[in-house]
């Protein structure tokens, strides 16, 4: 039992943190957001050159040959930076096709997605991240939860409250099940949600750190507001929710490759924890920042908005709690 990143994975995390701190400051995120979610092309080029989009794609298809945990590590850091790139959709779609697609689907899509020459969209027809301009969409069907590969669809830009990412609604297009459909295609959805949950962990971690820095600095009544117990308790709660999301997101990423039979439950755990936890932690960040937290000028709202849209992409916590309840009931018998 070793429930922590390996040294190599920690190294990936460290490199990603440093790179994104240099290349994707909040000033850059703001530029992208205020430009109508025009992604930062220089940043995307750099991520492509580093091979990040293909992190969980096999080397034979031009990827790095690593797995879901390494993908989760990168996603946490991109969430932490709230970076404006099509990374989540492209890398998560590629990882799902790699793990669950047919040989033909892999050969057709993975080289272009792994290199970042093409991008993908993920989500549902009602809410698809990065659908506009994507070469392929991985859409989750309701209520079966099966993932479909959709091409040639009409993607209409959706002006979501999160301007750091592009969203779309989808109509039409040609669809085929991922892999042979059925359980494999459902597992693809679980993998994609595990990836989104990993991003949320980074979003929450950033919100927590920004809040701690602020409440240590901001003084009222002659003392830092972070010395007030009500503020401290809020921060402790933020830590609890962030770490709860982290425990389940790591479990889901690990299960995806190492224990696929546990993935359905692990993914539901991660989704439920992240969907509610991300929203709650980032809402607390706004509150703890006081008046400044409610201004467009402060950066916490990017995180809050990302957490809201990530929760929506996850399908909301409630359906995952329902799934967990039925899994638990089946076990009790």
């Amino acid at each position, binding site marked *: 039992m070793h429930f922590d990143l390996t040294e190599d994975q920690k190294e990936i995390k460290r490199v990603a943190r440093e790179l994104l701190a240099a290349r994707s400051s909040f000033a850059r995120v703001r530029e992208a957001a205020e430009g109508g979610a025009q992604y930062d092309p220089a940043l995307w080029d750099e991520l492509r050159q580093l091979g990040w989009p293909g992190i969980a794609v096999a080397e034979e298809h031009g990827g790095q040959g690593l797995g879901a945990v390494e993908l989760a590590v990168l996603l946490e850091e991109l969430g932490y930076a709230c970076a404006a790139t099509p990374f989540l959709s492209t890398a998560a779609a590629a990882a799902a096709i790699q793990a669950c697609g047919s040989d033909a689907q892999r050969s057709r899509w993975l080289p272009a997605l792994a290199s970042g020459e093409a991008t993908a969209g993920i989500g549902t027809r009602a809410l698809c991240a990065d659908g506009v301009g994507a070469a392929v969409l991985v859409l989750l069907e309701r209520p079966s939860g099966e993932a479909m590969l959709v091409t040639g669809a009409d993607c209409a830009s959706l002006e979501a409250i999160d301007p750091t990412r592009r969203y779309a609604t989808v109509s039409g297009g040609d669809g085929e099940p991922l892999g042979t459909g059925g359980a494999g295609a459902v597992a693809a959805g679980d993998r994609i949600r595990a990836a989104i949950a990993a991003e949320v962990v980074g979003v929450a971690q950033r919100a927590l750190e920004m809040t701690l820095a602020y409440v240590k600095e901001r003084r009222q009544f002659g003392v830092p507001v972070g*010395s007030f117990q009500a503020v401290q*308790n809020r*921060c402790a709660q933020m*830590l609890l929710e962030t770490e709860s999301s982290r425990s389940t997101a790591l479990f889901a990423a690990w299960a995806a490759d190492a224990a696929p039979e546990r993935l359905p439950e692990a993914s539901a755990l991660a989704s439920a924890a992240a969907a509610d936890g991300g929203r709650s932690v980032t809402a607390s960040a706004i509150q703890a920042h006081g008046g400044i937290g409610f201004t467009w000028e402060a950066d916490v709202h990017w995180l809050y908005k990302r957490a809201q849209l990530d929760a929506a992409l996850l399908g909301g916590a409630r359906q995952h709690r329902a799934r*967990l309840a039925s*899994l638990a009931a089946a076990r009790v018998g």
Partner: protein
Amino acid sequence: MDLTFNADEVAFRDELRAWLEANPAGTPPHGDEDAHYGWRRDWQRRLADGGWAAVHWPAEHGGRGATLTQSAIFYEQLAAAGAPLPANVLGLLLAGPTIMTWGTPEQQERYLVPILTAEEIWCQGFSEPDAGSDLAALKTRAVKQGDEWVITGQKVWTSMAQYAKWCMLVARTDADAPKKHQGLTYFLLDMEQDGVEIVPLKQITGESEFNELFLDGARVPDANVLGGVGNGWKVALTTLMNERSGLAFFLQVRMRQLLDQLISEAGERGLLDDPVVADKLGELHLRCEVLRLTAYRGLTAIETYGQPGPEGSLTKWMWSDTNQQLTQLAADILGPEALTNGAPWAFELLRARGNSIEGGTTEVLKNIVAERVLGLPRLR
């Protein structure tokens, strides 16, 4: 990252499982608290005979030198088998390790084996009426007389005092020390003497797990000072640091079993299709799993870095919150039958209120998280 047990851990678990199957704890005697305790004492003797009473102790003292993960496995398996905690749990988890850390060779020789075999039960004399979370405020005094110390004061929340031969007692030996956590000394107090009066404390469940301890001229020889005069705060911290690590896994499995039972009873009433009930049960399942996963992350952190990470401070708080939520949901789902005197759910509901107080209140845990983990400034 590997969330499976390694070969040693699997071997440990399988050997333990086989032993527990061959040596079932049996059904607890009903009603009588003394008989129930006798059953747990007998259980510990059997564990000791099988070499399982103190797996986390080093082999030289009769343990198995188990790793933290193996120790977690031990408590998980114990709970999973429906077996009780060994009777001398405070001796095994608190007194023993503290004596191993601070005791002289003579003290280790004298005390450790009877702890293991449950021949001598231990209790913990830390909390006082005016020193709960603020332990260093304790007032019980020890005054030197010849080669003895004379103890006067009051302790409270002393579980198992009525069965205990020994008490881990912290008392003030220097009233003039500049800071209140200085001037404390840790004693090994013989409970079987005049000057020690035990008064059961009736709790909201109607049971008496705990006692008040009145000390009026109780005597402790010099040889029973642990860790040196004036060093009591440090020795007490050793005890307290041990307190939170072992039991967590036992309690977590017990909570899981309680949730499974609630799911089963909800199913019998056809309530699993009620979306509100399913939502709440799903949330509890999530919380139980978060607790389990986070507890394992904590073990890895301690095994890797020698100290818990930020997640380590959270599990007690998560557990108490979840257990309270779970038992409250049982009352919602099952109605008056869960609120009837003598009903197991009624007991669980009431007992759970203690969870967020015993072993550190949730409020103080949040303060500790804020100050020590998050580095926020203190204002007290």
